[in-house]
């Protein structure tokens, strides 16, 4: 392993700072546990569990203010690989990836793997095909990159406009999921919680832009991972005496398969293009856990996997994060870390689902005369519904998809604070996911929207102030959009990924790997991909085509690739300067292209003065 000298910019005390954060969080949880045992009412405990961590994230954000554009838009390019990877890994699917994925695993078992495999493959493709080159280019947003790469303002403006749609869908998905957990935690309406989360984002983002968002986001990501790991690890110790739930649920799964067989859980066969992902709200167990393709058909499985892969690899709110690493080598490494964290999260989610299913099936097998305490408690919390059948059957029990993660501590009869911790973890992941998408959209609005007609950025101060304004504006727009569009968060996220995959994946990949591509190709590729994907989603929602909207990438991605290639081939080739630029992107060494451009611009302005 070599160490680039650029790592000297990295703050050596980062570990200490985040150690302090983790111990404060642990302290808070232990303190609340003590209060619970002493008999404090649950109201204050719930509020403390929601507001305590949020206050910590805001405090970290306030500690990192900045006036410099490079700090504001790229966190000073000194976020080491590990933290960048943590941010990307958690932000890629955010709260939806933690709560809805656990629920999907619980309800349809194996078939939910299409999302996790897609995410993992997305990081692999991103690290090999996109991220290192984007880091060498060094622009703060994807539209700035596309505009400069094709030397065309229309490309820049078009990509900025198209980017807003998937970004807003992602913000809505994350805020809704976060508001669900937060609203459940403190018993307040979700709309109020959406406003609270938006205010947290603005408070952090306006002070220091990407710098404060990156550091407070790292803290929130650590909290999310811990809150996901702790309850299930305790359950794993209780069940198998070994604190590694991801690897030790095998024997349990085997017993579960026997139980499912005895209870007559069906092994269904889905049609190739069936895509019956469980929706928001209460649904019951649909199929055996390990039997593949009962809810999602084999073709739909592969298409969904490739859509998620392309969507994550080219998502315009994850790619700019790699420009915050100290160098190209660190960028590649950061995606290795993202893969590790994402794998940890998804394997843990699958383990939670196995343990929870085992609790349920065990309860059904025992044929109790009345529902046991923990089920009654879950019904009271609104996370489970039960019919009046006695003894209870698995078909009579319904589970809120997004509440399965929170149901595990109740089923294991742990103290209530552990349950609140699980809910606060979902809120933390929502903060990470929503602020990643919202900050990227804010930067695009400031850099490529308002100032989109000029290659020369605004003066230093005005640029940062415009960035602050854009972040506040995006928070307002995103919050309103979330309040107005009450749809299933998982569906919103899949639409967002399908649109990203169709619009940006072909163009971004070809812009690096195909020299002949020109501005016409970029415009045609983006508009074809976006148009076809959007039409497919709308047609699917209206019931015109027998295809799920989440599979829109099936038509969108080929349309985007075809549009980009055909339009490039039939129009004049790229200029010499453009070819020289592509050759330069491909080589990791040398000065960052964007930074050099800014440096030359400064020199020119000084000479003029």
């Amino acid at each position, binding site marked *: 392993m*070599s*160490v*680039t*000298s*650029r790592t000297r910019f990295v703050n050596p005390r980062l570990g200490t700072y985040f150690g302090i954060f983790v111990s404060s969080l642990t302290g808070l949880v232990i303190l609340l546990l003590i209060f619970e045992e002493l008999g404090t009412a649950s109201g204050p405990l719930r509020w403390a569990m929601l507001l305590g961590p949020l206050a910590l994230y805001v405090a970290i954000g306030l500690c990192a203010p900045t006036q410099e554009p490079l700090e504001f838009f790229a966190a000073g390019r000194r976020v080491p690989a590990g933290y960048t990877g943590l941010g990307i890994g958690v932000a890629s699917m955010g709260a939806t990836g933690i709560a809805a994925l656990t629920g999907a695993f619980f309800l349809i078992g*194996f078939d939910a*793997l*299409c999302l*996790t*495999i897609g995410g*993992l*493959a997305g*990081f*692999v*493709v991103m*690290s*090999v*095909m996109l991220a*290192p080159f984007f880091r060498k280019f060094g622009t703060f947003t994807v539209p700035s990159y596309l505009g400069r790469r094709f030397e065309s303002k229309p490309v820049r403006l078009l990509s900025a406009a198209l980017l807003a749609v998937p970004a807003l869908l992602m913000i809505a998905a994350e805020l809704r999921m976060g508001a669900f957990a937060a609203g459940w935690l403190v018993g307040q309406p979700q709309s109020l919680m959406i406003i609270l989360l938006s205010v947290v984002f603005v408070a952090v983002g306006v002070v220091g832009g990407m710098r404060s968002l990156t550091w407070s986001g790292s803290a929130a990501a650590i909290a999310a991972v811990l809150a996901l790991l702790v309850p299930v690890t305790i359950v794993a110790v209780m069940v198998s005496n070994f604190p590694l739930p*991801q*690897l030790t*649920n*095998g*024997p*349990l*799964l*085997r017993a579960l*398969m026997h139980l499912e067989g005895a209870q007559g859980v069906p092994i269904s066969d889905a049609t190739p293009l069936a895509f019956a992902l469980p929706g928001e709200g209460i649904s019951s167990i649909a199929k055996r*856990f*390990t*039997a*593949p*393709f009962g809810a999602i058909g*084999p073709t739909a*499985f*592969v298409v969904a*996997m*490739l859509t998620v892969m392309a969507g994550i690899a080219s998502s315009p709110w994850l790619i700019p994060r790699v420009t915050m690493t100290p*160098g*190209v*080598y660190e960028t*590649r*490494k950061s*995606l*290795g870390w993202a*893969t*590790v964290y994402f*794998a940890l999260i*998804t*394997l843990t989610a*699958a383990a939670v689902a196995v343990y929870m299913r085992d609790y349920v099936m065990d309860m059904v097998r025992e044929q109790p005369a009345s529902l046991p305490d923990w089920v009654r408690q879950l019904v009271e919390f609104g996370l489970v519904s039960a019919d009046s059948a006695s003894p209870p059957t698995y078909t009579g029990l319904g589970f809120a998809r997004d509440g399965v993660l929170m149901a595990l501590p109740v089923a294991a009869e742990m103290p209530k604070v552990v349950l609140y911790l699980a809910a606060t973890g979902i809120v933390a992941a929502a903060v990470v996911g929503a602020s990643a998408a919202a900050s990227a959209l804010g930067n695009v609005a400031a850099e490529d929207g308002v100032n989109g007609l000029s290659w020369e950025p605004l003066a230093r101060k005005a640029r940062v102030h415009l960035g602050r304004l854009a972040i506040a504006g995006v928070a307002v727009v995103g919050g309103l959009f979330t309040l107005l569009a009450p749809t299933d968060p998982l569906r919103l996220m899949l639409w967002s990924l399908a649109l990203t995959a169709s619009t940006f994946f072909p163009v971004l990949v070809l812009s690096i*790997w195909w020299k002949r591509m020109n501005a016409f190709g970029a415009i045609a590729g983006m508009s074809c991909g976006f148009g076809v994907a959007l039409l497919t989603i709308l047609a699917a929602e209206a019931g015109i085509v027998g295809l799920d909207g989440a599979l829109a990438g099936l038509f969108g991605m080929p349309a985007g690739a075809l549009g980009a290639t055909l339009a490039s081939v039939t129009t004049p080739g790229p200029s010499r300067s453009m070819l020289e630029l592509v*050759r330069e992107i*491909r*080589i*990791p*060494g*040398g000065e960052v292209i964007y930074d050099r451009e800014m440096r030359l611009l400064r020199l020119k302005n000084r000479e003029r003065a």
Partner: protein
Amino acid sequence: MMERKERKPYWRHTKWQMLASLVPFLVLIIVLPLYAESLNAKRFLGFPLGYFLGAHGIAAIAIFTVVSFVNRQDAIDRWHGAHEDT
């Protein structure tokens, strides 16, 4: 800094590395889930093998692919003098 005439061999080398990293991985993730059902008859660590390979196996292979790519590509950069200044 890299010499001009090194650019072509460097890019050829990089392209082959890209294919070597991605093609086997993509083939595997597409083909493996389709055979999960028949693999489920066997067991590993108590898990049905098809599910185990789909969940844990692909995660391990993804991590391995990125790690090996990072090391190989770094070696290629150094070989052609395209690496960042140290």
